[in-house]
């Protein structure tokens, strides 16, 4: 049982939906980012999605692209992202951390070495956008063997025929992408997302969390209401990009978490 499994069990017992917050590791710099991440659990964040900067984030919109650029310009590497998690773990040993990013930095480091380092750093799960089930041998299967959850994205284009394949080697939770598009673009609609979540839940016992296109406490509440939880990324990242200090960003995060937890 990973921290992710434990967290969902705990939320279920409390009758609460999960609030997942995405921030880019090292945005705008390592120290500010660490301060922010350390403040997330107290702001009501149940699971932290920690973005790993990459030069070519093909599934991300301009907000997260720029966050990655800021982090890279500040000198962030994959090792720094793991170090940030390690430092966080010194003050918090229960809040799950999911690393989210692209495959090349992991492949470049070497999958085996990366998995050992990630587990040591206290990472609980991985979301790697450019690894569909067709490439499960690359990282998904080895990650599960190393005790990490591999969280898969299901999307509006994942039809019933394909869904079992997507769910097959998924663990932790299923991340439903609310729109066909990139992060931070169109707004997710609860009345469209609800039936899709139900469709997925009919095929799996895993929690289904919805992300992409959720920007306000109201939206977080509406979407969490039709799922097991909700993810907000770009809306938080754009506050960081706008130069707001961590305390102000955390106030905003708290409003989102409160929204999701009211669902």
């Amino acid at each position, binding site marked *: 049982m990973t921290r992710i499994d434990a967290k969902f069990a705990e939320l279920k017992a409390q009758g609460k939906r999960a609030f997942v917050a995405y921030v880019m590791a090292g945005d705008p710099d390592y120290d500010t980012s660490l301060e922010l991440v350390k403040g997330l659990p107290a702001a009501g964040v149940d699971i932290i999605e920690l973005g790993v900067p990459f030069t*070519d984030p093909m599934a991300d919109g301009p907000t997260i692209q720029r966050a990655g650029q800021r982090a890279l310009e500040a000198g962030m590497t994959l090792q720094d992202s793991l170090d940030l998690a390690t430092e966080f773990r010194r003050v918090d040993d229960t809040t799950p951390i999911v690393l989210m990013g692209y495959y*090349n930095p992991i*492949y*470049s480091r070497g999958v085996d070495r990366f998995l050992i380092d990630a587990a040591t750093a206290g990472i609980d799960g991985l979301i790697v956008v450019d690894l569909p089930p067709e490439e499960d041998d690359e990282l998904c299967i080895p990650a599960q063997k190393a005790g990490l959850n591999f969280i898969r994205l299901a999307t509006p*284009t994942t039809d019933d025929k394909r869904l079992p394949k*997507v769910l097959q080697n998924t663990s932790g939770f299923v991340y439903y992408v609310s729109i*066909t598009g990139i992060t931070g673009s169109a707004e997710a609609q609860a009345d469209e997302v609800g039936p899709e979540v139900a469709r997925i839940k009919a095929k799996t016992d895993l929690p289904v969390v919805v992300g992409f296109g959720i920007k306000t406490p109201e939206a977080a509440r509406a979407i969490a209401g039709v799922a097991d939880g909700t993810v907000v990324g770009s809306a938080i990242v754009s506050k960081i990009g706008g130069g707001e200090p961590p305390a102000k960003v955390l106030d905003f995060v708290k409003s989102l978490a409160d929204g999701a937890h009211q669902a």
Partner: protein
Amino acid sequence: MPDDLINSFMTGPDEKGRFGIYGGRFVSETLMPLILELEAEYEKAKTDQSFWDEMDFLWKHYVGRPSPLYFAERLTERLGGAKVYFKRDELNHTGAHKINNVLGQILLARRMGKERIIAETGAGQHGVATATVCAKFGLKCVVYMGAHDVERQKPNVFRMRLLGAEVVPVTSGRGTLKDAMNDALRDWVTNVRDTFYCIGTVAGPHPYPAMVRDFQSIIGKEAKEQMQEAEGRLPDTIIAAIGGGSNAMGLFYPFLDDKEVRIIGVEAGGKGVDEKMEHCASLTGGRPGVLHGNRTYLLQDDDGQILEGFSISAGLDYPGIGPEHSWLHDTGRAEYVSITDAEALEAFQLSCETEGIIPALEPSHALAHVMKIAPELPGDHVICMNMCGRGDKDIYTVARALGMEMGEGD
């Protein structure tokens, strides 16, 4: 794997879309169903005679194929060694080999009922070809082009707009081909239901590398027959320039199992292949990684971050290379070398002076390597080089590099 252990080099990719360890389908889930649909559609078309009949008709009457195989006599004399032939794909409609592939993909898009076509372009040749075929079939066309390339390839930008395409300048990254491809993928993921992504080179997720190669293989197929006619035998050496590698794959593929034919791919060496990384020679100066849907050699730093390439030629300015080239490189079936900007410029001028052919900067790289090896080879050694594009689009760049005044237009 040593070359003599492989029976055929023409059987790839495998069912996972791999050439050895290269290739694959490294895309987001949103795109995966469409990529599988495309693969199924392509497999159907491949064995459908009516598909190829339509291709052959358009290749002949719209593109102007077959392109000539031309003996470059004065160039051969000047170099004083091997006999040099050009495969004249610069004479195609739209001025480059790109249209060979675009026609195939647009016919597939029509079969799939897609009415909106997107493309990425570097030098603009693929964008022009896509805009052209879209105009012919009345399809909506959106072309992503790095802002830097929009600037250095103005004539092609104007051409695309004349043809009714929307040209979107891409400002992320350094504004070159890699960034244009990122934005095209972002568009595709957003508009996946009605949009067909017409990739311009032998890269991207499976089935693109194989599909684009198959459409471009008309180059090598014709060259093989024409060389039989001209010399009564196969060429000794075939040479082509490589950015993503589509014109090269098109020339090489039909010759892969003719083991006596030496195959040379020429990468863009920019200012020189050294630790400063001001080049686009992925095979010479990169290592395997995953980008844009496939595993292949990439220019990247120690952390797996992708580096920007550098080349005088916008069409070669890409930090990756098609996965089949990576495999041919590792197996040793093909050799890969690099040519600097300065060498390519010299070749550009030599082609103009000796043959009256203004080549694009891309094949000028291939020609520069011919200039290096031909003088050392005997007179009965036959080289076939792919003259994959004409240089009209490059005259401003060349003028600037040579310090000449062009007056208007730049």
